[in-house]
C-alpha cells in the first residue's frame, strides 16, 4: 500500500468518530446549506433558461452556444473568477456551484423540449392543444425525462464545484476547510475518512433522490431499458 494510507478498520472508526463530532457536523451542515442554495438557484435558472431556449429559436441561436461553453468549463475553473469577483466569501462558493452546474440543466432541458416525439404533438394538436397550452401540457411533460437527466448531472457537477470552492475559499467553515487542514498537517487517516464521507453524501443523495426519480419517470414514460 501507499505510505500512510490507513487500514479500512481505522478509516471506518474515524468516519464514525467524525459523524458524531459536533464541530464536524456544523461544517457538514454549512456545506450542505451552500449546496442547497446553489442547487436551488441552478434548478430555477437552468430550467427557466432551458425552457426559454427550447421554446424560442432566436433565443437558442443567441444563447445556446453560451450554455455549451459554460458547460464545457469545469466547475473548479470558476473558483478563481468567483474569488476575484466576490473575495473569499461564501457567496463565491455558491457562485461557483451555480456556474458549474447550470449549463447541463439548460442543455438538457432545451434538448428535451426540441426532441418531443412528433406523434404526441400531433395527438395534442387534434385535441386542441396549441400555443401556450401545447407548451405546458404536452411539450414540457414530454421533455421531463431529459430535464431530470439534467438535474441529476447538475447535482454531481454542483457537488464537485462546492468542494473545489470550499478548498480554495478556506476561510469559510465547511467540509473543504476541514480537508485542507488535514492535508496541511498531513493527517492521512482523518483525511481519507473525510473523503469517504464526501463521497458517501454524493452517493446517498444520488441514490435516494435522483436514481429513484429517474427510474420512476423512465418506467412511466416507457423509456426504461
Amino acid at each position: 500500500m501507499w505510505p500512510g494510507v490507513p487500514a479500512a478498520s481505522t478509516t471506518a472508526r474515524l468516519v464514525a468518530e467524525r459523524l458524531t463530532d459536533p464541530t464536524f457536523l456544523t461544517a457538514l451542515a454549512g456545506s450542505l446549506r451552500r449546496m442547497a442554495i446553489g442547487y436551488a438557484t441552478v434548478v430555477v435558472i437552468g430550467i427557466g433558461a432551458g425552457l426559454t431556449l427550447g421554446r424560442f429559436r432566436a433565443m437558442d441561436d443567441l444563447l445556446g452556444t453560451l450554455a455549451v461553453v459554460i458547460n464545457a468549463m469545469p466547475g473548479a475553473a470558476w473558483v478563481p473568477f468567483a474569488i476575484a469577483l466576490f473575495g473569499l466569501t461564501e457567496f463565491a462558493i455558491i457562485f461557483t456551484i451555480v456556474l458549474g452546474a447550470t449549463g447541463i440543466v439548460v442543455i438538457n432541458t432545451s434538448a428535451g423540449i426540441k426532441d418531443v416525439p412528433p406523434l404526441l404533438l400531433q395527438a395534442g394538436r387534434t385535441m386542441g392543444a396549441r400555443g401556450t397550452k401545447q407548451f405546458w401540457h404536452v411539450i414540457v411533460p414530454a421533455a421531463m425525462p431529459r430535464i431530470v437527466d439534467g438535474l441529476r448531472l447538475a447535482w454531481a457537477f454542483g457537488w464537485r464545484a462546492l468542494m473545489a470552492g470550499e478548498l480554495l475559499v478556506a476561510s469559510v467553515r465547511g467540509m473543504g476547510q476541514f480537508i485542507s487542514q488535514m492535508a496541511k498537517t498531513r493527517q492521512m487517516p482523518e483525511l481519507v475518512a473525510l473523503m469517504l464521507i464526501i463521497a458517501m453524501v454524493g452517493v446517498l443523495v444520488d441514490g435516494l433522490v435522483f436514481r429513484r426519480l429517474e427510474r420512476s419517470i423512465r418506467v412511466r414514460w416507457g423509456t426504461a431499458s
Partner: protein
Amino acid sequence: MAIVLEGVSKRFAQNGQSVDVLQDVSLTIADGEFVCLLGPSGCGKSTLVYLIAGLEPPTAGRILVDDHPVTGPGTDRVVVFQEAALFPWLTVLGNVEFGLKMAGISPASRQARAYEFIKLVHLGRFAQAYPHQLSGGMKQRVAIARALAMHPKILLMDEPFGALDAQTRQLLQQELLGLWERLKITIFFVTHNVREATVLADKVYEISARPGQIKRQYPIAIPRPRSEHDPRLLTIQQRILGSLEEEIAKVVKEQVDAEYILAPRGPVVPADRNLGSHI
C-alpha cells in the same frame, strides 16, 4: 358531418427530390358513413388522414368538412393513431380528460364525461392506470375513448388496430361498430387489411401505390352484424384482393427490383393478410 375532397394532391420533399404521395384524390363521405381506405403500405393512406385532420396542408386541391375548408386541426375531427399516442405522464382518466381540459371545460364535468367514455370502452377499472401498464388493445381503447370524449363529428382512424393480435383486433372492430351505431358519427378508417375493411365499412375505397390515387370503390350493402363467413363478403374480398395484387407488385418492383414478376395467384388468397406489410 360530410367530408369532401376535391382534387387533393400532396407532394413531399425527400432527400432533395419531390415525391408525389397523393395525386388528384376526390371523394365524398356522407354524414354518418363508415368509410375504409384500403391500400398497400406506403401509398399515402396515412397522409390522407393527416390532411383531413388538418395536421398538414394539401399541395393542391380542397378539403371541405360540412362545406367549410379545412385550414388546421379542429376538435370536430379527432384522430386515433396506430401507436395510440397516449400521453405517458397522464393516467387513463387524465388522457381521456385531456381534450376537454384544452377546451376549458370545468374539472367536475370533464371528469364525469371522461368516466362515461372510459366505461364505454370497458376500462372502468383502469381509470387510474398509466399507459405503460396497459396492453396494446387497452391502449387503443383509451385512444378511442379520448377521441370520442371530445364529441367529434368525425373520427379519423389511421390503422388503429394494425399492431394488435387477431383476437383483440376482431373484438375491437365489433366494439367500434357498436360505438359508431350508437354515437352516429362519421368514421374514416385507414387499413391495409382487406377483411377488416369489408367487415367494417359502408364503402371501401381502394387506393393505388405511389402516387396514391383512388383506384376503385366498393360499396358494401351487407347489413350488420356481418359474419366473416358471409359468402357475399368473401366475394367482395376476392375482388379487392385481385385488384390490390397489381398495386403490391408495383410497390415491390419499385422497392426491390424492377424485374420482379408477380407469381401466378392461387384460387383463394386469405383476406386477413396485412397487405404490403410483408414486403
